Each structure stands twice: as C-alpha cells, then as structure tokens.
C-alpha cells in the first residue's frame, strides 16, 4: 500500500514538475558537430498563415548561404503563434521568442510590458530604405523603431457595378468614379445618396456593409482621427459628433442596417457577389473572400474577369468636397524579444531582412491577399499581373493605421457603444456622443486622453 501511495504521489508531482519545467535546451549558440561552424538558434513565434512560416524557412536558407563564409549557421526554432494574453504570461515566464509577430497597434503595451526591444537598425536597413514615410511612422514609437512591417493592406470600397448601372450610370461614368474620388469631386455624402437610391429602387438589399466593426474608415472620411501622436494620447473631440450624425442619418435613410456589426466579411462576401450589397467597406483581403465565395480560388483570370464586370472599387471618399480620400489598415509587424542581445541581433536583423526579400513578400501576397510593403516587391512580375492588387497599391499612400496607444481598445469600445446606441436604441447623434464621452472619460485613464471642444 505504501508503495502504491508513494508511487501515485510521485507520479502526480512528477507530472506537475515536468509540465512546469523544461530543460534548458534552447541554448542560443552551440558549436556544430564539426567544431568549426557556430550555430545560432533563433526562436520565431508565429502562425502559419499566408506564407509567413514558409518565408522564414526560406529566409533561413538564404541567410545560411550568406553566412557560410563566416562559419556561422542560423537555425530557426519555430514556436506556434499565440494570443496577447498567452504572450504576456509567457513573457512573465521568460519565454519570449526572439522574433514574433503581432499587429502594429500592439507596440505600446508590448513595450510597457517589456516584451519587445528597439530595432533601430531598421532606419539604415537596405530592406526598408524605400518604404513610404507612413510606414516609418508605424514602425516607430517613442523615438525608436520597435517593429519591422511585415505586410500591409488598404481599404477600398467595393461597389456593385450592376447597382450603379441600375441607377443609370454609364460604363464611362462608372470607370471614372475612382478619378473623381481621388480628385475630391465625389464625396462620402454622394456615395451615401447612391446607396439610398439603390436601396429604394430595390437594386440591392443592403446599402453599406463594413468589415466587422472596423468603423475607422468612416471616422477618417470625416477627418476624425482620434489620436494625437505628439502627446501619444487618444483625443475626445466634438468632430465625432459629425460621424455620429452620419450614422443616425444613414440608419434613418435605410443605408445602414441595424445588424451591420453582425455581418462580417465572411457573410458579406457571398452577399456581395450575389449583388445584394451596394458598397462593402473592407480591406484588401475582401477580394480574396469574394473569390472564395464565387468558388474561383484556382481561376485567377476568370475571377478577375468577373470582378471587372461586376465590381468597381474606390478609396473611401472624403466627406468634404475637394478633400483627400482615405484608407485604413491593420498591418502585421515583426517584433524582436528582449532576450536578443547585441551579439545575436545582427543575425536576427539579417533573417528579418531576408523575410522581406521582394519575391518572398509576393509569395505572402499570393497566399494571404495582403499587400507587399516595399516598392521593390511591387516591381515583381507576379505582382504586376495581379491587376487589382497592383492598381490599388497606391492607396497605401492614403492609408492610416490604428495608433499604438495602449488604451486604443478601450477608447474604441466607447466609440462603438455610441454607434450601437444609434443602431439599436434609435438614439440621436447627440445622445450617442454623450454616451461615448461618458464611457471614454470613465474608462480611458485621464492622463492618456486629450479632451478637445
């Protein structure tokens, strides 16, 4: 009996100990079997989405070719991708990977939590030398570079060509629409009016649809950016009332449906390809989702033909006549963990730079529907053949990203509460704004909120 008890006890405790501890088998450096080549192990944490994993594996091969002469070899230790909570907990346990990916919006809290380190080499890196200034702004925070942009997208408005034709638009007028938006001649209000007419004529079932609750495009259209980069604070401004005015107006005119927040892109794509939605506000990937909804994943040419015959896309028009159109994005960034010391950093840098090799970026574009980030990648022949991607890449110049402010999520939750009040409770723009103001003031720490009239 005693043996049984001790055995059971040992088994339970042993299992616990084994689960809690792991052997220190991740030595960063080790001499290889031949005793001459130095091996550097770099842990990379990411999901296999798109070509992210494949690109790292290919980058490892290319880097090792480069390093042959130096007698150094790099080996990737691949860790599965995890959510923010696990990232925090694992950081507490000292298990931050050398390289990992997350959204650009996460820099603020990641830095506060000490799970990323600065990578100021990005400033002088050949891989990033030609990226637009807006990308540099995304990668920088608090005076340093903390992330290397991995992919990008824009947010065109996909409009039903058939609906426009139903409203009496000629092919030339439809094709010229984007130019008018770019010139500030066609406004957001004009688009709303068209959606209302299309709905009234029963050409479509829904006026506007939007990707999840990514309402920032509509904020930007009204010049409502909510963020002060100099002070790194969220901004509570009366401009938001104008956006709520639009919401209340669009709901009353039937352009926006009460269930708009529930119709994600997975539901919207099949509806859009059936011609049931007048305008879908979504990011670049929606093109890919439409292709899936049409069942034409393998038929790129066939889908392009259908797309050109049935869809027209524009940037999000400005609410003001003569204003610049807008676009938004939520790019992924490559981060470097704090355990990477200065000795290891050059290898980490070279690995990341190889991941951004133009051809690898296009591999990712083809697999994920995201846009490449460097102009060199946009010169790739395969990219040039992708009409939609190639043509709308210019939107990146207009594209804004969510701020990396740690309380952005809290602020946005308060904003969406106001939207919900209009949608589901029939509240006025004024009431919605008051609710938003009250919630933001209560929940966003006062030292991170700028209140403007």
């Amino acid at each position, binding site marked *: *009996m*005693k043996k049984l*008890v*001790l055995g*059971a*006890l040992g088994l*339970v*405790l042993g299992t*616990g100990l084994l689960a809690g501890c792991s052997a220190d088998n991740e030595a960063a450096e080790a001499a290889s079997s031949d005793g001459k080549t130095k091996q550097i192990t770099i842990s990379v944490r990411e999901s296999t989405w798109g070509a992210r994993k494949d690109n790292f594996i290919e980058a490892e091969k290319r880097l090792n070719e480069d390093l042959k002469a130096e007698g150094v070899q790099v080996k990737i230790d691949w860790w599965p991708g995890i959510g*923010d*909570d696990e990232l*925090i907990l694992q*950081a*507490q346990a000292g298990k931050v990977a050398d390289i990992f990916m997350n959204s650009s919006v996460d820099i603020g*809290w*990641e830095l*506060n*939590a*000490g799970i990323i380190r600065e990578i100021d080499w990005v400033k002088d890196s050949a891989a990033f030398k030609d990226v637009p200034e807006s990308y540099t702004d995304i990668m920088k925070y608090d005076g340093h570079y903390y992330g290397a942009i991995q992919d990008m997208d824009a947010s065109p408005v996909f409009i039903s060509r058939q609906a426009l034709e139903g409203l009496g638009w000629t092919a030339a007028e439809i094709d010229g629409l984007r130019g008018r938006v770019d010139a500030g001649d066609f406004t957001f209000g004009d688009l709303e009016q068209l959606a209302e007419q299309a709905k009234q004529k029963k050409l479509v*079932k829904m006026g506007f649809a939007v990707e999840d609750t990514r309402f920032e495009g509509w904020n930007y259209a009204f010049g409502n950016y909510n963020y002060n980069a100099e002070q790194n604070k969220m901004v509570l401004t009366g401009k938001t009332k104008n956006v709520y005015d639009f919401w209340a107006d669009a709901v009353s005119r039937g352009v926006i*449906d*009460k*269930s708009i*927040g*529930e*119709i994600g892109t997975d*539901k919207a794509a099949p*509806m859009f390809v059936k011609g049931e939605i007048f305008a879908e506000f979504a990011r670049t990937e929606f093109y890919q989702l439409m292709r899936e909804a049409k069942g034409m994943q393998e038929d790129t040419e066939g889908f392009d033909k259908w797309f050109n015959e049935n869809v027209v896309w524009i940037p999000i028009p400005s609410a003001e006549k003569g204003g610049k159109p807008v676009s938004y994005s939520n790019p992924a960034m490559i981060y470097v963990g704090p355990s990477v010391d200065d000795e290891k950093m050059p290898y980490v840098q070279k690995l990341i730079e190889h991941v951004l090799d133009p051809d690898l970026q296009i591999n990712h574009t083809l697999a994920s529907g995201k846009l490449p980030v460097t102009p060199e990648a946009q010169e790739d022949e395969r990219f040039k053949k992708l009409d939609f991607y190639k043509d709308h890449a210019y939107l990146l110049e207009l594209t804004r990203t969510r701020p990396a402010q*740690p309380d952005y*999520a*809290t602020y946005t*939750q308060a904003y969406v*509460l106001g939207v*919900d*009040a209009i*949608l*589901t*409770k029939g509240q006025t723009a004024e009431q919605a704004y008051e609710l938003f103001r*009250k*919630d933001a003031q*209560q*929940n966003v720490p006062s030292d991170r909120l700028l209140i403007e009239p």
Partner: protein
Amino acid sequence: MDHLTDRPAAVGPAYRKPFKKKIYPYLFIMPFAALVLVFFVLPALATVAMSFTDLNASMKPKFVGLENFKRVFADYNLPDILRNTAIFAVLSLAISLLFALVISVATQYFLKGKIAAVVYRVLWLIPSIIPAVVYVTFWKYLFDPTEGGLVNRILLQFGLESDPVSWFSKAAMAIVILATVVSTISGGMILLSAAINSIPEDLYKAAKVDGASEKSVILKIIMPTLKWPLMYITISELIGFVSSYFFIMLLTNGGPMRDTTTLSLYAYQQAFNLKYYGYGAAVSLIVVAISFVLTLLFLRLFDFDEMIKPSRIED
C-alpha cells in the same frame, strides 16, 4: 458478582496507531491537495492580491488599495450590468429548473420504463455534450440577421416578415437565456430523475390503493423527495449562471450596447480584452461575493441544517 468486580482492570498500554498508518490518509490526500493548492487556492489568492493593484498589460503592478473597488461602485454601467446579471441568472435558473422537473417527472414517473422516456432524456443530453463553440455556432445560424439564418428564412418563406430580422439587436437576452437553458437542463434532469427513481414502487402502489390522484402523488410523494436535489441544483446552477460568461461572450459579446453584459463577462472583458487585470480581478471578486451571499441565502431557504442533522429514531 464479586469475582467480576474484584478482577483488576485490564492493564497494558493503550493502543496507538502506528505512525505510518496515521500518515496514510494524508498521503492519499496530498497529491490532490497539491493540485487544489496550485490550480484553485493560489489563483484565488492571486486574484485577491491583483484586485488591490493597478495591474495591466505592462505587468508592473502598483498597490492601489481599494481604488479598484471604489471604481467598480462608481462605474456608471454597474446598475445595468447588475440588472442584466439578475435577469439572466434568475430566468435561466427558473426556466431550467422547471423544465428539468417537468421532464424528470414525465419520463421517470408517467413514462417510467418506456423506451421513449430514455430516448427523450438522451435527446436533452445532446446540447450539454456538444462543444460550446459548435453549440453557439448553431444558435448564431438560427438567429443570423441575414436571409441565411434559419428563423429568418422560415419567416420570409411564409411571408411573415418582408425583411430579415436582426434578432440579436431585438432580443439578445432572450436568445442568450434560451441557449443557456437548453444546454443546462440535462444536469438537473439527471439528478431529479435519479431521485425520483429512488422512490420505492410500493409507495406509488399504496397511494393508488388509497385512491390518491396523480397530482397528490406528485405533490405528496415525489416533490418532498426532490427537496435536497433541488437545493443542490438551485445553488450550483445559480452560482454557475452568476459566474458564467462563455456562452454570452460567444453569442453576443455582451451586446448590443451592454444589454447582455453580465458582471462576470464585464470582469472578463476588463481583464482580458482591455488588459486591465487589476480592475477585472476586483469585478470578479464582486461576482464571488454575490455568489457567496446567494449560496448562504438558499441554504437557509432550503433549511440546510435540517438535512445535515443526524437522523434520530423517534422514542
């Protein structure tokens, strides 16, 4: 008798249990006590400690005393969230108890021994054994706001509605309660069925002989037997409903606005969506306090002391 009384009392050392026998119970308990300590006690203590700090994603906690609790009670959302919690918990409990009772009586008394009763009970078990994510997907499909939703499709097909209805905007709490109740009925049903099954058949026969009606059998024989199982189900399910957030999170995420946000979901959102761990911990402790008070209240209501009193043979 003298020889008996005069005999010296049996002497010798009193029996002492060997040490190794004394230690056995503790050795048996120890592994599980260690697990309880690691996975229940320590996290609970950590939550209490966390609630007195401003811990957020930066993981640099600072002691803030009762600040989080003051914030909870000053939170303008609190009255609405408490009301949602009460509506959700009370209605879910009442409906699920009622259904569990009706199903148990129907299948274990009226249809006792019939195959239909077994099949019916098994059918009710299905929702509770389906993984939550799959189960919620089904409800989302049912009440999808587009024409693709089953309910909308039926309504449109029969011309009862001209446009698809946004169910989650109109009746989110009702859907949440319905989905929760359907998946929790089976737990109560099993316990109540077992309790009814334990009633000796002779009692029913005697009642029939005495000319008792079905109503009398249910009220005078079955219901008294169910008092303690009902107490257990009431308390355990009530605690479950007060502290549950998973279905709600998957179905509505507390929306529209905060119409389906319960206190425990609010705690989860604060801690894990917004990464205000300290504040989330404080809110979750309020949930614990409410559950504790409700448990005491129901123990008193059901006269728990009576149940644990040792049985006494009448003189």
